[in-house]
């Protein structure tokens, strides 16, 4: 939460709608994400002028134009670097980074991992459609192996990343996953991300009806959703299934699916602890292809939260400490240096 308390009348979602025509394809999952962001913003104690959206290039990155806030639509893969400079310069700004799967983890992979370790207080929304939308349908490093796409007509031979594992491996302090088709869940996650002081990485499954339609449908469609999704919540047991009749248990280091019945009570289930990195890694590892029999459900929610000083706070503190100790050097002193001589 920002330290700045707004005195102005409460804003509404509409206050965050810019005058630019939204140009995504009909049915694109991006619409829902835009709308949820616009809906939760009035709830934050942040002055409108302090929001800054920074994006890379991709369909998703056009997001910036649609928010009536400050916005910078930068270049492909570099939003994290631009945002780092913004936040380092002015920590009071509430910086949101919007990026696609390609933008984030293909060309932007280096800045992505370095942002995670540095932990600037930036909210990172990655729209994952497992495809390059804007360039019309090439596979991305998050596309499933074997995908037939424009640049790989015989099926890709690329093993995809597991983006949450990657973020955790890069020392992310906040890792979450949500879905375009679940507005309430998104809103909850955006609020949690905003509360977190540090880089909050949120992966959002986003359907691209044009180039990769329905890759996430098991998780978004009514008839499969409750069997395939595991909605995790801190301190709560891991329950899923059409009738909330299934659960995950930990057998040593292995998650096992159990039926909740007379032998397995809800009390035996794995209780989600979002502060436990090992468990967060285990959860992130639940990444089975739905065609496997049997297979684990896919978790959604906040996987992991860690308190670690932000980069900008440490930097500010260092500046304060050095200034306190040595004071500010005057320009004239800087110009003259330690040793001078006079020519008469």
């Amino acid at each position: 939460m920002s330290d700045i308390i707004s005195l102005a009348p409460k804003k509404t979602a509409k206050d965050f709608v810019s005058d630019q025509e939204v140009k995504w394809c009909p049915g694109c999952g991006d619409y829902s994400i835009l709308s949820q962001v616009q809906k939760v913003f009035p709830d934050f104690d942040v002055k409108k002028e302090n929001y800054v959206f920074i994006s890379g290039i991709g369909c998703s990155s056009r997001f910036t134009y649609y928010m009536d806030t400050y916005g910078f639509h930068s270049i492909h893969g570099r939003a994290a670097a631009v945002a780092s400079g913004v936040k380092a310069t002015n920590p009071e700004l509430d910086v949101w980074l919007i990026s696609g799967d390609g933008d984030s983890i293909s060309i932007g992979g280096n800045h992505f991992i370095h942002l995670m370790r540095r932990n600037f207080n930036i909210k990172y929304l990655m729209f994952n459609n497992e495809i390059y939308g804007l360039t019309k349908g090439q596979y991305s490093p998050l596309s499933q192996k074997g995908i037939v796409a424009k640049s790989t007509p015989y099926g890709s031979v690329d093993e995809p990343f597991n983006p949450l594992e990657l973020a955790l491996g890069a020392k992310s302090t906040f890792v979450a996953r949500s879905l375009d088709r679940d507005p309430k869940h998104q809103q909850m996650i955006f609020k949690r991300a905003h509360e977190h002081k540090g880089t909050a990485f949120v992966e959002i499954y986003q359907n691209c009806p044009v180039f990769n339609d329905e890759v996430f449908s098991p998780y978004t469609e009514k008839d499969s959703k409750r069997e395939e999704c595991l909605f995790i919540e801190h301190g709560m047991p891991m329950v899923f299934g059409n009738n909330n009749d299934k659960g995950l248990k930990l057998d040593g280091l292995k998650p096992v699916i159990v039926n909740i019945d007379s032998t397995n009570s809800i009390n035996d289930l794995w209780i989600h602890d979002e502060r436990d990195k090992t468990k967060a890694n285990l959860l992130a590892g639940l990444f089975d292809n739905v065609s496997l029999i049997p297979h684990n459900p896919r978790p959604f929610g906040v996987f992991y939260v860690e308190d670690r000083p932000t980069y900008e706070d440490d930097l500010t503190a260092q500046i304060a400490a050095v200034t306190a100790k040595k004071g500010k050097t005057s320009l004239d002193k800087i110009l003259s240096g330690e040793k001078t001589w006079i020519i008469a």
Partner: protein
Amino acid sequence: MNTLDLKSGKVTDVREAENIVVRFSGDSGDGMQLTGTQFTDTSAFLGQDISTFPEFPAEIRAPIGTVAGVSGFQVNFGSKEIFTPGDMYDVLVAMNSAALKTDIHKLKKGGILIVNLAGFDKKNLKLAHYPEGINPLEDGSTDDFIVYKIDVTRHVKDALATSGLGNKEMERSKNMFVLGLLFWMFDKSMDYTIGFISDKFKKVPDIMNANITALKSGWNFGDNTEVFKTRFKVDVAKLSPGVYRQITGNHATAIGLICAAEKAGIQLFLGSYPITPASDILHELSKYRGNGVKTFQAEDEIAAICSAIGASYAGALGVTTTSGPGLSLKGEAMGLAVITEIPLVIVDVQRGGPSTGLPTKTEQSDLLQAIYGRHGEAPMPVIAAATPADCFEAVYEAARIAIEHMTPVIFLSDGYVANGSEPWRFPNAANLTPINCTFITESNNPDGKFLPYKRDDRGVRPRTKPGTPGLEHRIGGLEKQDETGNVSYDSVNHEKMTHLRANKVDRVADFIPLAKVDTGKEKAKICILGWGSTYGAIKTATLELIAEGHDVAHVHLRWVNPFPRNLGELLKGFDKVLIPEMNMGQLCSLIRAKYLIPAESYSKVQGLPFAVDELKSKIVETLNSK
């Protein structure tokens, strides 16, 4: 002349000289850079003008005793104005065989050669790849010089016999002995260096004392032994009166940036990735946390420039520093700064290319890249520094234009000015050119929405700071509509914006000085046109040629884009234009294209600055050619 020695009362040959070039040469571990710096600082302190040229290997510490490991420091000091570190040396100090091998060819005939005998044993000769049985000190090859063979190692050990230090530690003071000897030879006070040693080793008194002892015994060695026949007397220089300091180019660049940001009243943010020979700017700026300077060591050059763009966007002076390979990586992001019209200073300390090339050598071969090295029509101003101290003013100007004209600006330095040093009559902070940085706080459009791309009469758009209520707007890398800055794919608008961007850069010419003759007269027979670090060599050559009766003039270009408005006219006044560059003729092609004059290129691509003599011959040759 033979004269009574100033202090010892002995009669020695004291030669008066206007200037003297000394080269300290030894192994990377021999402390030659430190020795040279102390000698230089002392000379400067005594009021002489100086110019230095440190040269070191690309390896951190190449094998001891080898040619690859030779580290050299050259200084030219004198009573006249000095513009270069000198072509040939009057005095060469060679600490070992490899040093002699590397540098002897530039010792003047009749010059003084001081060698450390311990560096010429069998092992050292072999390491320097002298053929078996050959010792350059004994085969007649040094007969042209006045040679002093001194067993420095032994003298130092003798002097420190009672110090309680081990052999290795004693040997480390070798360079101080030599320095003391040189101080004696040039009759320079040891005070400055004694002060330096006392300060540096205040926590280890043993070492402090050993160094001071070695220094003094070097002096005494000169003073007491009859070995040395010659001493030199170099007067103080007739420099303009004022307070001076000694400064390297990289240091001057760093403080130029600090001054510019403070004068503009904004934060200084440096996004940088280390690279030779630019890293020292990052190192220097990182010391100023107390002044709120934010340095950010990015993961790579792309992140470095992008973070600087973000910083400028958020209200700072965003700067990124690099050398050639890094500049190549920044091209795409530079285009983003061009189209978003954000102030940004890009510092390129040029080195030998292409690719990794010659990382520790100097070159001017990034000029055309600076001007053209990004896709699309993406013009930006480019300025270059002439001398180490000039880095201050040039980078300050770069920042001023960047901030006041809302544009990225490239500042070109090179390994030669970056590491070289000279005395600098530094300015008062109060006298620095003001830099006007205004952030707009209210809409510039009486009829409604803020127009982020509405320009003033200089073609410059307003600067905003995120956090300003009511001015929320979006910018980015897609072509933007005139005035509103909204995305526009309109053909005619694109052409208009392309011209607006080009004109804005072109109109910077209205805010920079006109070109003028630096030395010599207008309409001379030949104009030597230079840019960047060739300044000193060209100026010296021109001065000497004029003194020799030639009709030569020197024009120096500080802004290489845009050119000063009168440049074409000025150049057309000369019969010939010769452009010496440490590249294959890059400025030359720009001048020919723009003014259609048959400027000739004089190219040197050796990772080394021009020698005055080679310049002079080339100029005379060109004068005489039909």
